[in-house]
């Protein structure tokens, strides 16, 4: 009875895709077991089978020595499994408390709202995941939504916890808190399955690591015996460059000048409170900040998706403040939006239709109002090849791609449009190390070609390793702008909390 969970030769075949094709896994009581693998390797699929969301094509799952065949999550929950889903399973129209207690609500016939709020508040305090239980989930930032998703899993006492990329949207501090919880669970003997693309996190929290590649488990190793480089190589199957190599920046003329920009979000809250900023050709400007401080609204406003209240946006010498999104695209602004599924893609369109989403008006994708399907498909095939989108099938619907591959499609489209400037919000969210490497290379290539890149990211490491200059945003204002090579993690982290350091850091 050492192994609490055992997975034996598990297979899950979707039409045309062998998502899991012989998975073996054993999780001991009280261990934190990490799963590593490229995007699309089959990690989430495996977790969903354990949680009863998918039924295996063949193979066996054993829980505490007994074979289980869950036909629905209800049965998995009854067996004591809890799960944090990679794609949130939250109901936007309901409140935080309602989301957390749903399925196991306090009260008799009546739903006891007050008790639910009390329990959720207590839970969030205990775990250090501060949240307002009465807020509607639709009004929360994705970072806060991630906390709700985690609270949900901990609301019910579980015997096994699955965490599918829980840290993708957390701040370093929040990740700390989460790890504290994980350790306490571990201490109680509860095993935790932990999925992350961040190798340092895996190193820090896990006892053992199982690596998956193309639907198969490659190996299981003791975490302490493997270096991050080893793990990366194992999962990709080749040597991966973890550090970004980049040459000296040669900034040119400003491509984007923002003056005193004020922006409200769709719920009419003022999010950007008078930002002035300059981006030059040939540089990557990182916009660092804690989620919810207006960085994404700022990006939306530059792209034309939000109308600013006041201020001025000058792009390539022209004032574009009142110009339509289409005209901005035309003028050479490329944009990778933060929410790939809602903004960046039409999930029900195939890859061809998604590839021309921003340029369908232009030749060769259309001519005199007629879509040129042939050349569009041609182009899509090229991008699929260049950006290693899997599966490489232009007729596949975007909804059928794994999250990482969806992101690649968006990036491929935006980067290949030959823009003058790229705004990239969270470009590598949820991507595996190999894919991140590829995307970072693309960003640097753009910069080296003399394009301006505005990188908006919650990942401090990403900002630090790519940016030529770093602007730190707090509460809708730019706190400071510092040169990239001089910046340190601690300094930026402090600025992000709104604490301005002394005069020794000069803004450029």
């Amino acid at each position, binding site marked *: 009875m050492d192994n609490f969970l055992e997975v034996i030769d598990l297979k899950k075949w979707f039409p045309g895709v062998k998502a899991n094709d012989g998975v073996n896994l054993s999780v001991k009581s009280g261990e934190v077991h990490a799963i590593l693998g490229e995007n699309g390797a089959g990690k989430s699929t495996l977790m969903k089978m354990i949680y009863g969301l998918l039924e295996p094509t063949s193979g066996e799952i054993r829980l505490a020595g007994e074979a289980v065949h869950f036909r629905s999550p209800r049965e998995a929950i009854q067996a004591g499994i809890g799960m944090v889903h990679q794609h949130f399973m939250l109901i936007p129209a309901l409140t935080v408390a309602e989301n957390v207690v749903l399925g196991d609500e306090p009260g008799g016939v009546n739903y006891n709202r007050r008790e639910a709020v009390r329990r959720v508040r207590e839970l969030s305090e205990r775990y250090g995941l501060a949240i307002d239980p009465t807020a509607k989930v639709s009004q929360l930032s994705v970072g806060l939504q991630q906390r709700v998703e985690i609270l949900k899993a901990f609301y019910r006492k579980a015997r096994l916890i699955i965490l599918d990329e829980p840290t993708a949207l957390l701040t370093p501090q929040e990740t700390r808190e989460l790890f504290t919880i994980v350790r306490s669970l571990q201490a109680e003997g509860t095993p935790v399955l932990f999925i992350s693309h961040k190798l340092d996190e895996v190193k820090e929290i896990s006892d053992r690591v199982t690596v998956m590649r193309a639907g198969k488990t490659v190996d299981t190793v003791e975490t302490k015996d493997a270096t991050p480089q080893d793990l990366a190589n194992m999962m990709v199957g080749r040597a991966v460059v973890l550090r970004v190599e980049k040459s000296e920046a040669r900034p040119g003329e400003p491509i984007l000048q923002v003056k005193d920009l004020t922006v409200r979000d769709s719920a009419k809250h003022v999010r950007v409170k008078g930002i002035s900023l300059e981006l030059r050709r040939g540089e990557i400007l990182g916009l660092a900040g804690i989620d919810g401080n207006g960085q994404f609204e700022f990006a939306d406003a530059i*792209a*034309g*998706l939000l109308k600013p209240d006041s201020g001025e946006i000058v792009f390539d010498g022209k004032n574009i403040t009142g110009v*339509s*999104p*289409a*005209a*901005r*695209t035309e003028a050479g602004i490329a*944009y990778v*939006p933060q*929410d790939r599924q*809602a*903004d*960046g*893609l*039409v*999930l*029900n*369109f195939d890859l061809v*239709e998604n590839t021309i*989403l*921003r340029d*369908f*008006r232009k030749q060769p994708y*259309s001519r005199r*109002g*007629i*879509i040129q*399907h042939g050349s569009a498909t041609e182009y899509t095939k090229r991008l699929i090849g260049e950006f290693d989108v899997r599966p490489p099938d232009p007729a596949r619907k975007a909804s059928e791609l794994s999250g990482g591959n969806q992101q690649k499609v968006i990036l491929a489209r935006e980067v290949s449009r030959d823009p003058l400037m790229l705004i990239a919000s969270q470009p590598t969210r949820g991507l595996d190390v190999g894919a991140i490497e590829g995307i970072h290379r693309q960003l640097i290539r753009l910069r080296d070609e003399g394009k301006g890149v505005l990188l908006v990211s919650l990942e401090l490491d990403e900002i630090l390793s790519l940016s030529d200059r770093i602007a730190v945003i707090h509460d809708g204002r730019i706190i400071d702008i510092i040169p990239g090579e001089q910046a340190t993690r601690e300094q930026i982290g402090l600025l992000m909390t709104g604490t301005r350091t002394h005069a020794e850091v000069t803004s450029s």
Partner: protein
Amino acid sequence: MKAFRIILSPILASLLAIIIGGILVSAMGYNPFVVYGSLVSGAFGSVINIGNTITASIPLILCGLGIAIAFQSGLFNIGADGQYWVGSAAAVWVGYHFTTLPGWLHIILCIIVGMVVGALWGGIIPGLTKAFVGSHEVITTMMMSYIGILLARYLIEGGPMQQKGYNPQSPPIAQNTQLPYFSQVLQQSQLSLVAVAITILAAVATWFLLYKTTTGYQLRTVGLSHRAAKYAGIKVKLFIVLALCLSGLFAGLAGSVQMLGVDHRLLDGFSSEYGYTAIVVALLARNNPFGVLLAGLFFGALTTGGQNMQIVSQVPAALTDVLTGLIIFFVACERIIPQIIQWYRRRRSLRSGALTS
């Protein structure tokens, strides 16, 4: 399996409905073979009957195309009836005015005016309120539909389009605006080849618009995701209005073609419920323009066959509705067929598996 799903399972589903309906009909004391025989022969039994079927399907197809465009744009146009009737009224009005125009020009004018009026009726108020205030189009198109029908009725019940004399009806349209029938047989089923050509053209045009043009691409994008559309630089509000206009345009076209080809004047009646039936036509076709042609013919056949069924087998009209309802229900449930087959296979393989182990 895919081809099976698309072709065979609706047929099997209809069969299931027919069997259930047959049991029902025999329970009521009618001979199911006579009943179904008369349904089929009424729809397809003679050249005239086939003609009747096509005639009956034309307005359904045209309205269905418009509704499909709206659905593809993420909008539910439930008010095609009203758009149809105001379009009809406008076409008839033009049809008995401007009588000095040459016939072909007059016909084109009638049709264009009918289309434009239908488009304005469906597009302006529902479209603008949807785009700018967010009013739900199901309500606004439905309300505008009732208003449109009352308006058309008013026009001939004491309103400006009533013909002098006894009956509430408009004057007939000019002789040379009536769509030509070309042959005796076609005349007997009131089937004009011009109307058929317009219908086929309309389906092709819809398909081309939706899948081959940037306009269609934008309509479909708006239909699937407003946010992505905005990101793509599409003027979402404009395309909402456009989609509802186009939807009304086709209903107006249906009305014009019906007036010029069949009714020749605005008659008091307004009971056709094309709007609701055409919704079913569009949805059964999964909003595919060529599917709408087929589904429209299917419903045309049910209509004419149902009338014949009453005559030949003496089944009350109401029972034809019962059968029609059953058939639509099971055709909608066609997915049950592969499920049943799969379930049967699995059971069999389970049993044989149990035997071997």
